[in-house]
């Protein structure tokens, strides 16, 4: 490994953009952010104006992607739904991160008995899978956007709690931490300087991937009729409508479907790129994506792949 004299942030950025997927993901997420910032109102009134004379039309000059069952423009509607879809997903992930940090942190700090009990409960909840868990939570908190956000938040909490737990207990036994204690760094100092830093980095990476999965989970709930209710709309709800008119205008279902899939993919790739950026070991590793990985222990498992394995049962390929 060659040492460079560049500033750390520059080397971080270098690692982030080292692979084409990093650039691609960053661009896609930027576009999504702009769409969300423009908001539901930024794409013209066609998103919500009903026009029954032109209902369920295919692609025309006036409506590039056609219209839905009530004559609303599919393109405008899809773009307008970006903010709702992303904001709901972000809120759900925020709930999961906060609750997961609290539960995981507390478990890591408590005695062996509580630990074992907590791990058992978390394992039980995780064995349900996120959709099933979310459906059960909706049954408790009620149908609708609020219920769906809480449901997805709760459904994602066990994996975040478990991730925090293993992360914190992993850091706690490191030698440098014991050394810090020996030289008299206070408990709070240990927490803020070593534990928090380590947890925050990994949490951010897992968070990106989780937002993408939350978009999918949220749209699944909307699709089942348990999530957001008309007249509000997100991609999942648009899909439910679009599927009903699939034969008249397939774009009504395809447009939100493509957005959901692309968002999920972009955010998980962003997570991978961020994992490369926060891991100094990988800073000077130039594009490895395209090469068959020689397994050296340091570079073999990035924080990202470890994280992804915990959160979604998916494994990020080398």
């Amino acid at each position, binding site marked *: 490994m060659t040492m460079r004299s560049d500033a750390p942030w520059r080397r971080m950025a270098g690692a982030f953009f080292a692979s084409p997927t990093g650039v691609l993901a960053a661009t896609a997420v930027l576009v999504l952010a702009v769409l969300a910032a423009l908001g539901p109102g930024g794409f013209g009134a066609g998103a919500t104006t009903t026009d029954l004379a032109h209902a369920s039309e295919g692609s025309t000059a006036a409506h590039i992607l056609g219209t839905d069952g009530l004559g609303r423009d599919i393109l405008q509607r899809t773009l307008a739904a970006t903010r709702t879809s992303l904001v709901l997903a972000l809120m759900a992930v925020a709930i999961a991160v906060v609750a997961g940090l609290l539960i995981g942190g507390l478990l890591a700090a408590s005695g062996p008995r509580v630990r074992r009990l907590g791990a*058992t*409960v978390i*394992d*039980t*909840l995780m*064995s*349900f*899978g*996120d*959709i*099933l868990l979310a*459906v*059960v939570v*909706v*049954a*408790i908190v*009620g*149908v609708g956007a609020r219920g769906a956000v809480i449901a997805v938040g709760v459904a994602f909490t066990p994996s975040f709690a478990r991730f925090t737990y293993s992360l914190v207990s992993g850091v706690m036994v490191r030698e440098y931490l014991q050394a810090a204690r020996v030289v008299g760094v206070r408990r709070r100092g240990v927490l803020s300087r070593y534990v928090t830093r380590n947890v925050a980095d990994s949490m951010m990476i897992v968070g990106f991937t989780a937002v*993408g999965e939350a978009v*999918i989970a949220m*749209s*699944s709930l909307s*699709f*089942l*009729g*348990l999530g957001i209710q008309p007249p509000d709309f997100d991609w999942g709800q648009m*899909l439910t409508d679009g*599927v009903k008119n*699939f*034969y008249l205008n*397939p774009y009504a*279902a395809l447009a939100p*479907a493509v957005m*959901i*899939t692309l968002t*999920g*993919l972009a955010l*998980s790739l962003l997570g991978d790129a961020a994992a490369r950026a926060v891991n100094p070991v990988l800073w000077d590793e130039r594009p490895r*994506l*395209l*090469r*068959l*990985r*020689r*397994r050296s222990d340091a570079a073999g498992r990035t924080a990202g792949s470890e994280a992804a394995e915990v959160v979604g*049962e*998916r*494994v990020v*390929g*080398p």
Partner: protein
Amino acid sequence: MKWRRFLLVRSARLVAVLAALVVLTFLMVHLVPGDPARAIAGTNATEAAVKQTRQELGLERSLPRQFQHYVSDLSHGSLGQSYKTRESVNAVIADRIGPTAQLAVFGMVLICVIGIPLGLIGAVLTRSGGRGFEVGFSAGTGAMAAVPHYLTATFLVFLFAVTWQLLPVAGAATLSAAVLPAIAIALRPAAMVARIVRVRTLEVLEQPYARAARSKRLSAATFYGRHIFPNAMTSTFALAGVLFASLVGGAVVVEQVFARPGLGTTLVRSVLVGDYPVVQGITLLLGVTVVVVNALADVLLAIVDPQTLEGES
């Protein structure tokens, strides 16, 4: 000796998880805000009617008493009674479990038939094909894994049932009606399996014993068939439990698309109408199934790969 210890530890854990499941499903109904008795009796029912409903459902008893009843009912194999139809939950489940079980079995078979060969071929081709193939494989399976179940289901309906008119799209009357839903729930986990199998196979290929086997100039069939694949498969086997859970979750969504009268559709409908005993019963059943399958997978894994015995105890 190791085995005895392993089985003891594993079954203790299984019992603990099952107990946690029972407590959680019990608490679920009691976390619902509002008075279930009033919800069932109707908003304009008289106070007396509500009181009677409450009594019939046993809701006037204290929480520990209700839990005691829940557990004693469970020990007799009874899951309670539907709020809405007054039918026993056991009957509801017995009525609906067929299509879901069929879907789960078909799905699991498809995951193995699609995922494992795809991963193995992927690994072999990565060795010979190099970069372009690796990127293509990662992107392809990545996209496959990113598509939600209900989308796959919708596309399949469109292609097979509308465009080509090959297979039935709704119901569960015939065996062929299970084909499309099974493909829909299996594709996503199959992509995950393919990715994992490929990575593990490549890992095995890096091991010293693989290099030793290679240096013996074995035929490709012997080399891969005897030395590489079996070793790659054992570590993949550990994922069976996770896959089964994702299959069950997928079934809940996919049944809805295909209007299959299974546990998933019943669960969603019961959530919408607030029929909590049915939600409770189905959740408990699905949960127990997933947990037990997980435990069995661990035991099977230990039989195939005794090294895991060390880690467990």
